[in-house]
């Protein structure tokens, strides 16, 4: 594991705390003159994000999620924090007609998107479909059971959720200095800046390669779903990395990525994920939601 370090440096209007978590470079911009306050805020945010990483990472064998994924059909403990998240996933699952499914990560066993130049055979995809289905996951108030062979992947939500939770933690500690929490591009602001102006956030311009548009953000969060670099080009056809849990195949015409600004980072993340699952309808879906969005089409 990487060494957990928090770096604090001075900026024009305060401090910048940076750390590495959830496979991303993370930073907190803090508008405070006090080094002690800034380090307290940076420390609280980093600790909270690391805590959620330690709990929900698929890559850390000690995490609660890894233990659950290795439980082979046994009941496991479920705390109220996770139960709250799963209740929320229930709703997104229903709203997306089952396309947003945290059990579908298992398809990556055959869809590697690591530069491969072939696509899997239907006979490889088919057997995996029986290990997918959020509704097959059994829950009580404090216990959870994954059917044998199932795996959960919360990678699509945890980073966004962590940004919101870290901000909530600061508010609970009455630390009301203006902050911007940026977890590898998924970000959340506490409100306007000290001078009552919005934060200026750069978002990759979908129209022009390698340029950004500046977005004025005085509340809420921004999140991006999708990865423009992950696709398979096979026999002249492009296969995006977003997979349909029902067929096991990539969603046709899905954009490479979608960036959304919404009242919380978690909502931004959910809306951008849902947009990608709409395939070619992504842009019109986001337009109907009346949110600021940037869609990079394939």
């Amino acid at each position, binding site marked *: 594991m990487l060494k957990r370090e928090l770096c604090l440096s001075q900026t024009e209007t305060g401090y910048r705390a940076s750390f590495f978590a959830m496979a991303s470079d993370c930073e907190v911009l803090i508008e*405070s*003159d*006090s*080094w*002690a*306050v800034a*380090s307290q805020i940076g420390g609280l945010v980093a600790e909270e994000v690391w805590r959620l990483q330690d709990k929900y990472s698929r890559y850390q064998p000690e995490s*609660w999620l890894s233990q659950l994924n290795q439980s082979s059909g046994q009941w496991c403990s479920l*705390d*109220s*924090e996770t139960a*709250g*998240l799963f*209740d*929320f996933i229930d*709703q*997104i699952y*229903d*709203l*997306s*007609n089952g396309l947003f499914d945290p059990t579908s990560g298992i398809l990556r066993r055959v869809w590697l998107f690591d530069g491969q130049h072939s696509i899997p055979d239907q006979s490889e995809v088919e057997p995996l479909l029986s290990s997918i289905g959020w509704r097959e996951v059994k829950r009580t108030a404090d216990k959870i059971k994954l059917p044998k062979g199932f795996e959960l992947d919360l990678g699509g939500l945890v980073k966004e*959720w962590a940004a*919101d*939770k870290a*901000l*909530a*933690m600061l*508010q*609970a500690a*009455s*630390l009301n*200095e203006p902050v911007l929490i940026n977890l590898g591009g998924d970000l959340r602001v506490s409100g306007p800046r000290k001078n009552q102006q919005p934060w200026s956030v750069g978002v990759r311009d979908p129209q022009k390669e390698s340029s950004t548009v500046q977005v004025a953000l005085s509340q809420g969060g921004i999140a991006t779903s999708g990865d423009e670099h992950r696709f398979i080009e096979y026999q002249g056809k492009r296969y995006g990395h977003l997979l349909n849990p029902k067929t096991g195949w990539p969603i046709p015409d899905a954009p490479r990525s979608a960036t959304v600004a*919404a*009242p*919380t980072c*978690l*909502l931004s993340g*959910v*809306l951008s994920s*849902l947009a990608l699952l*709409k395939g070619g309808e992504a842009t019109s*879906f986001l337009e*109907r*939601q*009346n*949110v600021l969005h940037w869609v990079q089409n394939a």
Partner: protein
Amino acid sequence: MQLTKSNLISQLTIASMTCLGASGAVQAEWEVDSAMLIYDEQDRVSAVEPAISLKKTQEDGSVIGVKVVVDALTGASPNGATASDQPQTFTRPSGKGSYTTPAGEIPLDDTFKDTRAQVSASYDAPLASGERYNLGLSVSSEYDFTSLSLNGGMTHYFNQKNTTLNWGVSLTQDMIRPVGGAPIGSSDISLQRKDGDEQRTTAEARVGISQVLDKRSLIQASVGLASSSGYHTDPYKFVSQLDDNGRPVAYFYENRPDNRLKTYLHTNYRRHLSWGDTFDASYRLTSDDWGITSHTVETKYRWNWNEKFSLTPKVRYYQQTAADFYQHHLDESPEFGDHLSSDSRLSELSAFTVGAKLAYRTESGSEFSLRLEQYEQSSDDKHALLGVQESLPQSSDLSATIVQFGYKFTF
């Protein structure tokens, strides 16, 4: 697909409240701190004290707290009389029955097997201006004593919250109903002269400041003043009158002043060390108009073995001067002023406490702890002891063991 619904954002906002909490704040949970303390004085009093406190931070930033402590006391405590080389017999405070102390032992009154219950509630909330205010109420009751206390205060922040100023006031009313009535102070106990119930009122004010020195260290200082008026005497304590050989000839009821003015100064320094441990040192000075001045020095070191286990050893040294009216005993031609007591707690003494707390934190954030402490108190009374007293035990020498089990969790 149902996703065409235009109110998706509001639907999702409501749905996400379960995991984000309304308005993005943390979910309000009760933090529970429960403990069972066992206090055991060698050959004297034993106490079992279960305590539970609940605290909840609400979405508006206010904190409500409730605490209940029950104290069940068994055993006997010194009645103030000196030991003798002969058996001594005392009438019980109720006037009914008596108890006899064997030769060579400190007279202990075993009448009271008492239970005390205390309930307190507090509310601490932010103001729009950024300060916080707090209010509290506490009620305590035991068989011969009822106490009601109200308090309130404010916390102000300066200098980017690096400096905190807090102040508070409290008012306490005690009602004392001694078994058999309150004795007439300084009178011979054989006269059995008793009054009825008594009262005591205490007003207190304190002001404190805490300053963040750097990222890892904090210093705090506070001063306080408490003025009490009313009944301060312990209605069950005697003073022995000794002859030239140090043997008792008579006993008098103790008698304390009706007023007491106490002041204190407390300072504390805490440092979080770079490797994760915490060092804490504090000093407390108290002084009152009875002539008692005390010094307390305490240091603690929290040693975090890993994320789950921590060990906190501590040492504490306490020293006080005697009250002006303290007398170990009266001699054959007693000369004393208006006030008189031989309660060892008012004598010149020093005490040393050594202890450690072992804590285990679970993954869900609950904490189990075990605290062990040994308290050793000894008399610093420089007065030459009379006759047989020299070889007899003194009540100000005391050993006590404290064991506490704690469990903290949230729900």
